[in-house]
């Protein structure tokens, strides 16, 4: 519709020159390759120049600054399947109508499930905290990317420790090798359960994992035949788990001849993955997903210059993936340094996901976290419940985040972070620990006289929060909220002005 007037970004993948990498570019990089940054962080990255800034963000193996994850962070045994003996006794009780015994078993299972749901909540809080605090934001952003890519929901898995293990798998491969991750994902207990591969037997294959491996995880629709699904499912028979470990159950495995994607032989799951990785469609598919995540989630209409530019860049990314044998880091390095990435037509075009909105507000404005549970609830109301993607295709993202209800949830969540106000709490803020000077420290210390001028303060707040110039009536109305000229600006006025800016549609963009 409006594609006609959309300007096409350059398709150039040449590295951006140092003199064209200013604060606007640094801000863009921080938002896309992380969750935004303060004005001081933006200034630092701009001063460093593109190479050092990008390498700093890519250096997720740098353990300094933020702790790694301890394997004992959560209880590995909070929930378990019934043992064989328990299963037998339970079946017996059912058959014999021994209600007391049945109730005992169900009670046991339900109490484990309750404890597990509590732990799932802790894992959610833990991850949100990492996103907010980590000194390696790209690691968490890529973990979120893989979570949406290999979407697996606790609703089906019903095992918080398996969800935690999978999250750790994504984190440890955040910027690693996609091929490695694919070999690991067919051994991941949460995934095996979610896509029913624990029920994939030689005598009755379950095709769910085989299908999604090709359709949603690595190749895309139309890049395989129904036969590849059938034979791929046979290759994956016997890939299951016991407790918290992957096991290969040879008794369930079909070791007959198979032909998948043009490869034949007595193929197993690894051979299936190798056949997938050998396809050009695989690097194209991953390049497209990465592009949509980091550059533009809104695909321009076919035949437009913007579309042509996008397709060229994706081709280049796909080529880089193949050249680097599916290593993600060098591929992203090329993207984050490219002129295309920083083109003005690619800035302020993505709608912040709920995680980006919440985490980004805290990180870029230095607001208090206030209450993790409230933030998780708010994200759920905005349509993104961590560890509960809506289906195996993950979150649709982009415009699907926005409707008449989520608009208010988004505006009210930022108001909550800024002021502690909740609906109905009124202007008597219960908690006002936030000092708005945190967001504009640079400005206040370097230009004290400007910080007393509502007009200039309005301009600065708009710039810091929206990353763009807003003129005219909206800037004036922000200035009016800030107070009368000549008077020292009160924190209260600044907070209200920030709240107003955070309710502007542009605040939802990054």
């Amino acid at each position, binding site marked *: 519709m409006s594609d006609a007037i959309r300007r096409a970004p350059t398709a150039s993948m040449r590295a951006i020159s140092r003199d064209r990498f200013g604060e606007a570019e640094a801000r863009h990089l921080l938002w896309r390759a992380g969750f935004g940054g303060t004005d001081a962080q933006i200034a630092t990255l701009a001063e460093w120049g593109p190479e050092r800034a990008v390498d700093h963000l890519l250096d997720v193996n740098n353990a300094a600054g933020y702790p790694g994850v301890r394997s004992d962070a959560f209880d590995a045994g909070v929930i378990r399947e019934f043992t064989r003996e328990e299963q037998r006794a339970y079946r017996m009780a059912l058959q014999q109508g021994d209600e007391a015994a049945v109730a005992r078993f169900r009670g046991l299972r339900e109490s484990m499930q309750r404890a597990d749901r509590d732990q799932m909540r802790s894992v959610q809080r833990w991850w949100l905290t990492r996103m907010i605090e980590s000194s390696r934001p790209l690691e968490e952003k890529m973990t979120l990317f893989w979570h949406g890519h290999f979407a697996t929901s606790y609703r089906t898995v019903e095992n918080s420790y398996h969800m935690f293990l999978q999250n750790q798998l994504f984190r440890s491969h955040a910027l690693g090798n996609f091929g490695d991750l694919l070999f690991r994902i067919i051994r991941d207990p949460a995934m095996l359960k979610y896509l029913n591969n624990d029920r994939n037997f030689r005598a009755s294959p379950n095709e769910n994992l085989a299908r999604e491996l090709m359709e949603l995880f690595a190749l895309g629709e139309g890049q395989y035949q129904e036969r590849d699904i059938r034979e791929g499912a046979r290759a994956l028979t016997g890939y299951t788990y016991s407790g918290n470990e992957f096991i290969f159950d040879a008794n369930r495995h079909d070791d007959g001849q198979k032909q998948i994607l043009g490869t034949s032989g007595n193929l197993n799951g690894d051979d299936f993955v190798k056949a997938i990785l050998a396809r050009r469609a695989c690097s194209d598919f991953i390049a497209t997903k990465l592009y949509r995540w980091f550059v533009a989630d809104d695909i321009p209409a076919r035949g437009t210059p913007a579309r042509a530019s996008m397709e060229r860049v994706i081709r280049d990314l796909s080529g880089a993936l193949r050249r680097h044998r599916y290593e993600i880091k060098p591929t992203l390095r090329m993207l984050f340094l490219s002129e295309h990435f920083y083109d003005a037509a690619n800035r302020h075009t993505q709608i912040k996901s709920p995680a980006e909105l919440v985490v980004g507000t805290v990180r870029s404005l230095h607001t208090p976290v206030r209450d993790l549970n409230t933030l998780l609830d708010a994200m759920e109301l905005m349509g993104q419940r961590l560890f509960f993607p809506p289906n195996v295709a993950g979150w649709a993202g982009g415009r699907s985040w926005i409707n008449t209800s989520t608009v208010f949830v988004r505006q009210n969540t930022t108001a909550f972070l800024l002021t502690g106000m909740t609906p109905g709490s009124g202007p008597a803020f219960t908690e006002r620990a936030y000092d708005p000077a945190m967001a504009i420290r640079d400005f206040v210390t370097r230009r004290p006289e400007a910080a007393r001028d509502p007009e200039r303060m309005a301009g600065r707040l708009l710039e810091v929060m929206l990353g763009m110039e807003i003129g005219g009536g909206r800037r004036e*109305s922000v200035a009016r909220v800030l107070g009368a000229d000549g008077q020292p600006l009160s924190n209260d006025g600044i907070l209200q002005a920030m709240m107003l800016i955070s309710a502007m549609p542009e605040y939802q963009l990054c």
Partner: protein
Amino acid sequence: MDLHNSKAYTRRAFLVRGVTLASGAVTIPYFLQKSGVVLAQSSMLNPTGAGVPTDRILVVIQLAGGNDGLNTVVPFASDEYHRARPGISIRAEQVHRLFRQSDLGLHPALEGMKSLFDDGMLTVVQGVGYPNPNRSHFTSTDIWHTADTRGVGAGWLGRYFDNQCAGSPAADAGEELAGHAGISIGRSAPLTMQGRAYQPVSFESEELFRWTGAEASREVADAYDQMMRGELDPSVDETNPTAAFLTRTAMDARIASDRIRRAVSTTPLTSYPRTGLGRQLAMIASMIRSGLETRVYYATLGGFDTHAGQGGAQGQHANLLRQLGDAVRAFYADLKAQGNDERVLSMTFSEFGRRVRANASNGTDHGAAAPLFLMGPMVRAGIHGNHPSMTELEDGDLKFHTDFRRVYATVLEQWLKADSRAVLGGRFAPIRVIKQG
């Protein structure tokens, strides 16, 4: 589209005001662009004209947690029933008998439902469920929400909304209907109402469906209102379609918020019990009265997961049923006073019934088939289907005989006048529970 031809407008005041306020902006809210005319020409002209599809309203009441169907519609004459649940079974003299000769009765706390029944406004659909019942709250709730026995995909009413916009580009589908064609009272929108494209409006209380920041000061509230009415400079960057989309949606939200909050703030014509469900249904009745073009409302009553101390004629479960019956009775009294009762069909559902046999804690565990209620003056009052057998059980649970999707098909075809096959992805025969006229 001519928004200034106001001859036919019944809600002229709103539209004229809306258009005037938005006219300063480059961007007109979707709500006015796309549904202004539909809204103006729709049922508002004739709020009591039943038979016109757009007039009809569906209210869904979810009984969350798994309602014990056996103690809701009670087979009081069955020895098996009393033997299976000593301590919580309901005796013959306690129930509200449905017919003189019948051996079925409503739970004693369901006085409200009994009075609806006597007034010809209640039908009980017996033995509702689906094959291979799933006893997980999550999964079985998803199955009911999606009308898919795997519990995957969009919600069934969400798909109904999606299909209402057939012919429009799928990406814009959600925007063709009034944004508030579906309203859910609750913390988050239930899956039932979420389409592939359509997203319902949902709010727990009307106070949450507005900008909190307005409470901080008059100045900031005014500035926000001006901004959202598009009165401040043509600020939307039309070369950035995403920014323009966000601005239009935010403007829509403000308009819906104003209308909904104004509607909800009116005092009901009749009194409601002071319960959670009573409050929700009072809000819905007020919205109906205000003439919102909402087609489906959704309310929820939770707490039915009665594993322990469920009680019999009195107690935990009885309190929930009383809350349900009294609230629905008050709701229809209000609707009748408004003259809107014939426009409104209500239905209950729960993710599963409970086991026939009580457990050791005088509660009941997750079961399978159960009855559901359809309510309103347009139902064929009575009981549909036999009570499931108390002796031929499946895994200790009642067997279903009426697939829940047949109930959905009935509501879609005979009430909402929609193509149930397109929404449900298959043919499910409607049941005869709605008056045809």
